[in-house]
């Protein structure tokens, strides 16, 4: 079926196959176990986080980690559209990857992966938001991924960004939810891995954690991993979350300091 609501290109198009020069095999770390960008295995990347970029939204945030760029807008709490009574508020999350955000062009309509990621973000955020104070209301969180540099770290960044945006909207929360990710590559843990590292991974862990309450709001792991390694990755992600937490607090305080 032809979608008349969009400008249509040719029926089929494919990305060309890229000839990779053989000598340029990617080496993920050097002899001092430093990664290609100079980080140690357990280091996370610097984070740029700013609130209030979307003037039309109740709350918004923009996050940049390496090349990953994510914008998030929060609308609400507003009246729930479907007239059914619920004593608790409703949280609705929609993640959208811009068609140009990944190595391969994505279709503009919502696919199954986006729906699944949206569900994961809901599960990560719900424990932190006081939905019991917002009967009959809906909070809509829209997340647009402008550039994706590693899916696991991208999802972690989306959760972090959304949590800050919710706080920016002035919605009551128990705590902020920082999230961090780790990749398992060759029996080692690479924190906050990028796209090239992700292609070599055998598994990943995404953890979102409320530092003041010491509660895990979401955990997702995939891959064939020993229990000991998982426990270690889990500890490292918890530490990383605490670091991200301070960045989140700073980004929320910054506009207030500016006005003073």
């Amino acid at each position, binding site marked *: 079926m032809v979608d008349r609501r969009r400008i249509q290109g040719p029926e089929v198009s*494919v*990305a060309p*196959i*890229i*000839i*990779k020069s053989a000598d340029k*095999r990617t080496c993920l770390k050097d002899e001092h176990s430093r990664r290609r960008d100079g980080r140690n295995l357990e280091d996370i990347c610097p984070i740029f986080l700013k609130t209030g970029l979307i003037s039309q939204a109740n709350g918004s945030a923009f996050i940049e980690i390496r090349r990953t760029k994510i914008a998030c807008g929060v609308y609400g709490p507003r009246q729930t559209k479907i007239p059914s009574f619920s004593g608790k508020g409703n949280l609705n999350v929609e993640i959208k990857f811009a068609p140009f955000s990944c*190595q*391969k062009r994505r279709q503009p309509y919502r696919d*199954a*992966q986006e*729906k*699944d990621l949206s*569900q994961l973000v809901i*599960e990560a955020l*719900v*424990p*932190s938001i006081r939905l019991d104070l917002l009967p009959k209301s809906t909070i809509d969180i829209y997340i647009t991924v402008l550039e994706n540099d590693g899916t696991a770290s991208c999802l972690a960044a989306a959760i972090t960004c959304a949590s800050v945006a919710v706080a920016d909207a002035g919605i009551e929360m128990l705590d902020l939810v920082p999230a961090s990710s780790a990749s398992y590559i060759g029996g080692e843990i690479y924190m906050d891995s990028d796209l090239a590292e992700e*292609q070599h991974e*055998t*598994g990943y*862990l995404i953890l979102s*954690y*409320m530092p003041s*309450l*010491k*509660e*895990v*709001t*979401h*955990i*997702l*792991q*995939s*891959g*064939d*991993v*020993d*229990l000991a390694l*998982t*426990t270690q990755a*889990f500890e490292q992600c*918890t530490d990383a979350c605490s670091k991200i937490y301070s960045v989140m607090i700073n980004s929320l305080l910054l506009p207030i300091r500016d006005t003073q």
Partner: protein
Amino acid sequence: MAPVLISALEADYILKGIDDNLRADGRGRLDYREVILETGLITQAHGSARCRLGEGTDVLVGVKVDIGTVDIDGTEEEVATVKAKRGRVVCNVECSPIASQQFAGRGADDINNELTQMMSRVLNGPQGGLNLEKLCIIPGKACWIVYIDALVLDYAGNIVDTMFMTTRAALFNTQVPKAIIHDLGDGEVEFDLSEDVEEWERIEGWEHVPISVTLNKIGSRHIVDATPLEELTTEAKLHVMVNRNGKICGIQKSGSGSIEHSLLSEMVQVHIFVI
């Protein structure tokens, strides 16, 4: 039909029972219900299994293998060559609306999608167990695609565990036709499918397919194999996928609650005990 709401008193009753390690049906916190597993029920499928857990949960899984083309575009040559030599697994989970009220209407789409994604995530990665390279017929051209369709016929709690158990049984039951490859020279290759059922083979690596253990956090404790009423009391669930070597193949939290840091580590350790 399973209930969708629970009274505060009922929840309190369940909570206290769990504290005393005695649940409403007489089980302890880490006891499973009785499992009835059958394989090979559907003659039209290449493999099938049905699992019933206790008195209620009933999941039917059918596996169909089909010849498909290899998806190679869009990646670097290095990755493309690896991909060209692989088959793939396509999952679909559907919860029948007759099983529970929560599967009726639009709510079912979200649940179906979540379960489908969870299963494809586990089965398509290196942790999935199946040797995807053995599913390749002609590199770069043709491969087997394994379609796994899971149908939840009845619901009495703990769908995810039942689903993974049934899937593993169905994959064990699956017989793939043998492809006979003819070399026509000039690099041209063709293949035929063997008619002889005797030559059909199991998918290699089925024994490494993981199963899942779901831990339900109720109060400050956790239980396995929850009934619908217990699931309603659950604040958060943790699905831990493990294979036969005791390796963790996936962890995923679901539900609206959060889990204390210390409890989570304990919960992950528990799975080994359960297995």
